[in-house]
């Protein structure tokens, strides 16, 4: 059993910060994520709607994978807000990587507001089928 090889660090999202015109403080929000393990990789899928690909910062180091992204504000200029559930925010989430991840070959793609990160397993972690002679 290798239950702890991909331990997850939940980044505590900042308390909801009230936004007003004079205060440009933007709260950090933890994006929703899925993680799936296949035979040779871990696949992390994360909802990052409204993010330009160029603004996504994906860092690996210190045994952690961190994702940061800022969101463009889609509102009309000089418009009155009638109803708002989408507040200015930046996305931030961190995951702890176990020894079983090949840090050199992490691959990421962004499409339709979803970031998909493929973390290949090191050979040591891959399940091997042993052929019985």
């Amino acid at each position, binding site marked *: 059993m290798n239950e702890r090889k991909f331990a*997850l660090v939940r980044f505590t999202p900042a308390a909801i910060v*009230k936004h007003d015109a004079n205060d440009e403080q933007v709260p950090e929000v933890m994006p929703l*994520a*899925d993680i799936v*393990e296949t035979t040779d990789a871990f696949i992390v899928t994360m909802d990052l709607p*409204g993010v330009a690909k160029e603004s996504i910062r994906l860092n690996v180091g210190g045994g952690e994978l961190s994702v940061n992204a800022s969101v463009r504000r889609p509102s009309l200029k000089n*418009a009155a807000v009638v109803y708002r559930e989408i507040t200015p925010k930046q996305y931030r989430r961190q995951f702890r990587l176990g020894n079983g991840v090949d840090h050199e070959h992490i691959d990421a793609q*962004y499409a339709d*507001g979803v970031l998909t990160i493929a973390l290949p397993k090191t050979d040591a972690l891959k399940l091997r089928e042993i052929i019985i002679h």
Partner: protein
Amino acid sequence: MVVHVEAPRAFRHLVNELLETSVHQAYHGMPAIEVTEDDQQTQVVAELPGVKKEDLKVGFEDGVLTLRGIRQQQELPDSARVILNERHVRDFKRRVRPAHEVESQHISAQLTDGVLTVTLPKAEKAKARTITVR
């Protein structure tokens, strides 16, 4: 999908009139939206990460804008093991009733990076005007 509502309390009754959303749609299948308005148009923005253009339907009928669609799941090999599953939304529906008449043949919609923007131009008689006093 986590929805933060920041509408001021005074807007509550207005919001209830504006949004025709029933309880059973709440939480999973209801994308977060923002509604803004200027003197020419109302703009509805919805967060729809992972939704493709062809899986999204935007309709306008009887003064109500309806957004609905499905989010395709990623295909996984049988051997895949789920470690974390927070992205529950598979299908969604949300309705918004603008507070003014809409030039319905000129509604436009654009889906970029998982964010849908719908622009609903105001009908001529609904636009704000300045009346010259003689």
